[in-house]
């Protein structure tokens, strides 16, 4: 089932018309199609050049947006998913495994949402439990051993706030990951591909290179959570979204991320292949740069980067 946002509907209407015409064998439909396609492109441009912060939040959470496994399947030549934290369980909200891309090996780890009820039960709506973070750490240590760069895809509303998660040390699992990632002796590239939800995102997001796709968000709290704390009204989430400065351009300006990866016109979900190509190119290029450094230098840079995070005092 396709689900689209309100502001995307005009685009879809034209595209449906085009699709109808494509089935029509009438001779002048070709011309009509060309015209409509041009209109569509302009419409897209118009709509997407003037998106509000809130519309961008909605795009980041778009139900048709590609998820980690979508990218992994398109980017890798081989991928073998690995399971489990060797301690308690296997968390469906985080996937990970070894991969081959263009003759090089990678450890790819991503937060994973579901597309339907069944999937979302398995994936817990992309909200990891401690065992998810512990699995990801296990895989990173394996990557370290086999000299594989780590690539993480961030896409979570946040770490799951539930009884079992607290019981099994959600805070410990996150903190432990931070502590270990900062010292991991292989390059780490993290990319926000949808929602960057607070500590649950950061727990797999300590990286040498941190990037965000164009229509993604990353903040310390969800706009809804922020609004309900500040104004006791979650429906003011759009206001909170602006206050939180959660867009890629904000984070780039604040020195938190290193790069914004452009999305195809209309967003990643309009052209998953093009998006995957961008992503793959980005990963390969950045890996190459990072691997040119020796490990000592790599770690020095990483330490310096996080040491200077938020150094904006009077």
């Amino acid at each position, binding site marked *: 089932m396709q689900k689209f946002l309100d502001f995307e509907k005009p685009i879809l209407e034209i595209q449906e018309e085009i699709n109808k015409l494509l089935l029509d064998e009438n001779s002048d439909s070709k011309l009509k199609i060309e015209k409509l396609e041009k209109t569509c492109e302009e419409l897209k441009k118009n709509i997407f050049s003037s998106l509000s912060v809130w519309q961008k939040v909605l795009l980041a959470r778009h139900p048709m947006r590609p998820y980690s496994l979508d990218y992994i399947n398109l980017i890798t030549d081989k991928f073998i998913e690995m399971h489990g934290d060797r301690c308690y369980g296997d968390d469906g909200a985080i996937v990970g495994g070894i991969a081959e891309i263009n003759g090089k090996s990678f450890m790819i780890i991503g937060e994973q949402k579901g597309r339907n009820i069944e999937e979302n039960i398995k994936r817990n709506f992309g909200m990891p439990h401690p065992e998810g973070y512990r699995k990801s750490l296990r895989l990173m240590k394996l990557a370290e051993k086999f000299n594989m760069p780590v690539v993480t895809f961030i896409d979570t509303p946040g770490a799951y706030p539930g009884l079992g998660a607290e019981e099994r040390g959600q*805070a410990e699992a996150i*903190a432990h990951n*931070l502590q270990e990632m900062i010292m991991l002796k292989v390059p780490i590239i993290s990319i926000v591909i949808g929602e960057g939800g607070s500590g649950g995102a950061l727990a797999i997001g300590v990286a040498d290179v941190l990037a965000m796709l164009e229509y993604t968000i990353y903040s310390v709290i969800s706009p809804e959570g922020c609004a309900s704390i500040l*104004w006791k009204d979650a429906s003011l989430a759009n206001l909170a979204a602006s206050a939180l400065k959660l867009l890629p351009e904000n984070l780039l300006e604040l020195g938190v991320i290193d790069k914004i990866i452009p999305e195809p016109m209309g967003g990643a979900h309009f052209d998953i292949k093009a998006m995957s190509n961008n992503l793959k190119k980005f990963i390969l290029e950045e890996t190459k740069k990072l691997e040119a450094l020796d490990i000592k230098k790599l770690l020095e840079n990483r330490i310096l980067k996080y040491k200077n995070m938020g150094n904006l005092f009077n």
Partner: protein
Amino acid sequence: MKVIDEKLENIDDNIENKATFPKDMWVKCEKCKNLLYKKELEENLYVCKKCGFHFRVNADFRINMLIDNGTFREYFSDLVSKDPLNFVDIKPYKEKLESLYKKTNKNSAVITGIGKLCEKNVAIGVLDFSFFAGTMDSVVGEKIYRLGELAIKKNIPLILVSSSGGARMQESILSLMQMAKTSLIISLLKERSIPYISVLADPTTGGVTASFAILGDINIAEPDALIGFAGPRVIEQTIRQKLPDGFQRSEYLLNHGMIDVIVKRKDLKNKISDILDILSLNLNIAKKAQKHNL
């Protein structure tokens, strides 16, 4: 200066403003509801003599309680938040901070410095719940980082006492990044085998628990402290059921493997001292041996 806060039901909010402590001679215990003579309560380190309830106390009080008289030297007290996001709130973030500076006579939610604990040099940082619910912003992160650097430079143990609502929303992503930054300095200490004791007091939640506070070589909790990642209200809303008794309290965390030891406030200083003594015994021997070999 106010030493204790009211116990607040909701630690997700920024509730420092609501804290209006009765200034009279008697205090009602939040747990057993008995009236306590304030002076006696203070002598008992703000622990109820009737039921053992540990009142929240501010950072100055804790420093006095843990550090040998007259030996504390504060560091980095001049650091002040810049409101890097120009955060819009009901009241602008900057104004909120200004009023806190005046009210608390502090520049941030953490006091950091060096002093002696039972005659041992230590670097100590104490989060102050009475300042913006002890939340971690860029300044808190930076002060803890610098304190850790100081501990490394002077090769002395680090003690951090937490009491915090987590990362500070008003600095959004920058607050979040302080989790990585503070975890980094703990990693650097660990690499150098410098002892780090984390004391978790009521309440310690969110990004503070999920970074330096849970990463102690030894994690000590005060009795009955609320310690967790998500706040209880958020969890209740998520799972739509009431939380079990004792959930996210010190004893619960001990049983679930997150805390080494629960220590009553009156025993805290001596316990830390004992721990530091034991942890450093063989390090010192090793160092001496090393020197001898050189």
